């Protein structure tokens, strides 16, 4: 048996236009908990997908050794066969089925074609005991809380004789007590000789539980640290390693002079969709001023998108709070109300929620503003063409014609179409959710310029972004959200990546 149960060396994985993993090497010792940390988009998820066979052998370069033997996973099943189990943030349990059915899904106990329920139930009890779960194997998964569901997933991995357990943000959705319990279970299974790869943004947990920490940044391995040795890390060290990148991209910063308050949000609270006792947005208050760009930073799952979509009337159940535009309180019940009031929301999910992919550029561009050039519900088609042409040219959308279906456009051009669509509604407040995600540097720069032009015309912009350099490079002020609450506000002149990341991970501004 080698010292390292897992060795991944020189992994390179490219997507069209992006090098997601650039020569990443990563070793996990037998029986240790190894934390993998990095900013959003640093390459953690891609690395796990390579390890688990989601990205099959051949779609990346580099070597994977498990127990010293080279592996070439073609599919998830192959990685499971050598004992790798991945527990994703979105749990892969079937909620309508019982715990025992879930535990042995695909590996049912008994003779072929007939399940032996007695064996299955007694084995299930044993595995549930190993994760300190005192529930009946016959309980339905949907009746369990999220914390217990997580433990069922771990039990399922143990039942599959997993030797390498990968946990992707396991405690993101858990409360303090469930989190502490989960960490205990991890220590227990580590004692049983199972190795864990632990991905988390909660740095205090990383410090508490990890034997080793590897930091990824921009698809590269920064360093690996033995947490019991002399180069052990503390939280500030981890943060600086995570963000320690030079600001190589350029941002066309323009000095804005913020004017009067345009959008005023007070004590805004939204119920959690899965748990009516919890708030996904908890008592949030903020202002947006005339002619400024307000950046909204935070980690994935912090509630940024949920906050903006709920303001736009498109998310969740509001349980409290007020929204006022230019001093006038609004009662927004659906996106139609929001658009009429002068709000616009550019979604982070361009293909899923922003565009009708089978429609052409013209129909997408005008979809939210048809009213403006229709009389008695009849569209002035030639006016529609004229206006679309105007926006396509102003935004430099590269296309042979406005009759091109948007699914045939590149990501950057699609994003320009979405932006044009919302500019056409003549909003007073434009909310941009990850406006440059997945688009190339040139298109990014053009979008930044458009943002500045809009601000110059008096539009207020709220920009959610997971790319810290972008938030810091473009915003006048930065709100940092942590677990549904505002954990701090930074003026651009004082905002640094370290400060922002500290606030985003729940830390306190010093």
């Amino acid at each position, binding site marked *: 048996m080698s010292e390292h149960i897992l060795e991944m060396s020189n992994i390179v994985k490219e997507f069209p236009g992006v090098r997601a993993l650039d020569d990443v090497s990563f070793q996990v010792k037998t029986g240790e908990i190894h934390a993998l940390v990095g900013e959003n988009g640093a390459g953690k998820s891609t690395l796990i997908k390579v390890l688990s066979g989601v990205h099959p052998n051949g779609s990346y370069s580099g070597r994977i050794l498990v127990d010293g033997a080279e592996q070439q996973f073609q599919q998830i099943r192959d990685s499971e066969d050598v004992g790798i189990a991945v527990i994703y943030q979105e749990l892969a349990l079937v909620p309508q089925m019982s715990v025992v059915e879930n535990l042995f899904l695909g590996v049912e106990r008994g003779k072929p074609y007939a399940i032996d329920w007695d064996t299955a139930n007694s084995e299930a009890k044993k595995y549930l005991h190993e994760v300190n779960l005192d529930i009946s194997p016959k309980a339905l998964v949907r009746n369990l809380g999220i914390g217990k569901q997580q433990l069922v997933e771990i039990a399922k991995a143990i039942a599959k004789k997993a030797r390498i357990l990968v946990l992707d943000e396991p405690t993101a959705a858990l409360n303090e007590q469930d989190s502490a319990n989960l960490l205990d279970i991890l220590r227990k299974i580590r004692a049983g000789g199972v190795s864990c790869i632990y991905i988390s943004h909660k740095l205090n947990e990383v410090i508490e539980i990890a034997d080793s920490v590897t930091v990824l940044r921009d698809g590269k391995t920064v360093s690996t640290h033995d947490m019991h040795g002399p180069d052990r890390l503390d939280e500030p060290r981890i943060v600086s390693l995570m963000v320690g990148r030079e600001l190589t991209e350029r941002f066309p910063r323009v000095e804005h002079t913020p004017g009067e308050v345009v959008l005023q949000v007070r004590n805004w609270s939204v119920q959690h969709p899965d748990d009516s006792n919890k708030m996904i947005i908890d008592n949030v208050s903020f202002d947006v001023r005339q002619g400024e760009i307000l950046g909204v930073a935070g980690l994935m799952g912090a509630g940024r998108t949920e906050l903006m979509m709920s303001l736009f009337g498109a998310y969740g159940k509001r349980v409290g709070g007020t929204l006022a535009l230019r001093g006038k309180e609004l009662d927004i019940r659906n*996106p139609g109300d929001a658009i009429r009031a002068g709000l616009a929301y550019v979604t982070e999910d361009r293909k899923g929620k922003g565009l009708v992919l089978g429609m052409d550029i013209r*129909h997408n561009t005008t*979809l939210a503003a*048809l009213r403006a050039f229709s009389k008695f*519900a009849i569209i002035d088609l030639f006016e529609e063409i004229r206006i679309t042409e105007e926006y396509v*040219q102003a935004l430099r959308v*590269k296309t042979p014609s406005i*009759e091109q279906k948007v699914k045939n456009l590149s990501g950057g051009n699609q994003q320009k179409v979405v932006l044009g669509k919302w500019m056409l509604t003549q909003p007073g407040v434009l909310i941009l959710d990850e406006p440059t995600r997945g688009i190339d540097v040139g298109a990014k720069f053009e979008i930044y310029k458009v943002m500045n032009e809009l601000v110059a015309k008096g539009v207020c912009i709220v920009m959610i972004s997971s790319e810290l350099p972008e938030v810091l490079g473009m915003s006048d002020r930065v709100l940092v959200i942590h677990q549904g609450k505002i954990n701090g506000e930074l003026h651009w002149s004082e905002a640094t990546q370290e400060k922002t990341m500290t606030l985003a991970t729940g830390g306190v501004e010093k």
Partner: protein
Amino acid sequence: MTHEMTHDKTGQSSLHMLQDQLQNNMRQYAMFIALISIGVIFTVLTNGVFMSPRNLSNLLLQTSFIAILAVGMVLVIVGGHIDLSVGSIVGFTGGFAAVLQVNYGFNTVTVVILTLVLGAVIGVWQGFWIAYRAVPAFIVTLAGMLIFRGALIALTGGQTIAPLAPGFRAIGQGYIPRLFVNVDAIAGFHDLSFLIAVVAIAAYVVLEIRVRARRKSFGFTNLPIPLFIAKIVIVAAMMWFVFSIMVNYRGIPYSIMILMALVLLFVYITNNTTFGRHVYAIGGNREAALLSGINIKLKTFYIFVIMGGLSALSGLVFTARLNAATAGAGNLFELDTIAAVFIGGTSMRGGEGTIVGAIVGALVMASLNNGMGLMNVSSEYQLIVKGLILVLAVWFDTSSRSSNA
């Protein structure tokens, strides 16, 4: 960072464009090819009877009540829903109309108005459950299929209700009158129909030329002149072929006049109105439509009210054609209608589909019914053939889409 031309308006070669056109519109061409093949096969198998003016005129009459339903079904399916109840609504509204006239002596105009109102009310009922109570359309209209079939039998007591007044019968059996030429009361040259045909074809040509000029003024790519002329000639020839059937037999039936008016209206609705645009957006991407401020519930509700009204219209035409209301009227019309819409290139997944395509699809289904009837294929085998055609049509749709993606 350099920027390429934002607009590439340079002309392409005719051949290249033809290829592009063929590739992009494969589905549309496929359904015309299917229609022509079916015509050729039945003409051969029936020793030419299928192509006789009398039979073709009959075929158009048989198409009308399915085509009326197909017009509404395009909106339903484009919007991401389905309607299984149309056959039963055709039966129920037709029975309602016959009872009003035969048992209560209402005049035809009143009957028509009341029946259309009934259809719309049925649409309100189904639309309410689908749009505002979020019960899937599949379930609501499956229930409607039972409810309205039951209502028909309860209303008529299972009896055949007949006969109808001549004015009513004309909706399904009558032809527009002749103007001057009165060669023969039954067959022969029909002057008014000829006039309508000429006006329609001329209007089409003028429209195409005007659209081309407008597109040119906006700098859009147009078909090269030879292809443009070829397209106009082919479409005009097809229009003339269809009209000539009627001009040379007994003239244009009233039901076909109704259908043509509906097609024009709904082509306009789908292309030129906010409602039409919203339906396509809802079916194409519900989330994007919602975030664009579209009132999805209200539009869905409208779709089903329209479908109910069109079902009633189809019920009137069908009852008038049979000159009677029967307990089995409209049975399996939903199958013919849905098949017509899919054959006509409407996507299973919503968001895509055309009115004209659905009309061609309805012609395909009616040709199958008509041709197999001429060949005395027994009804059980007719069902099997139609079932197979439906599977093939949808398979063709899904396979051509996935290879495009």
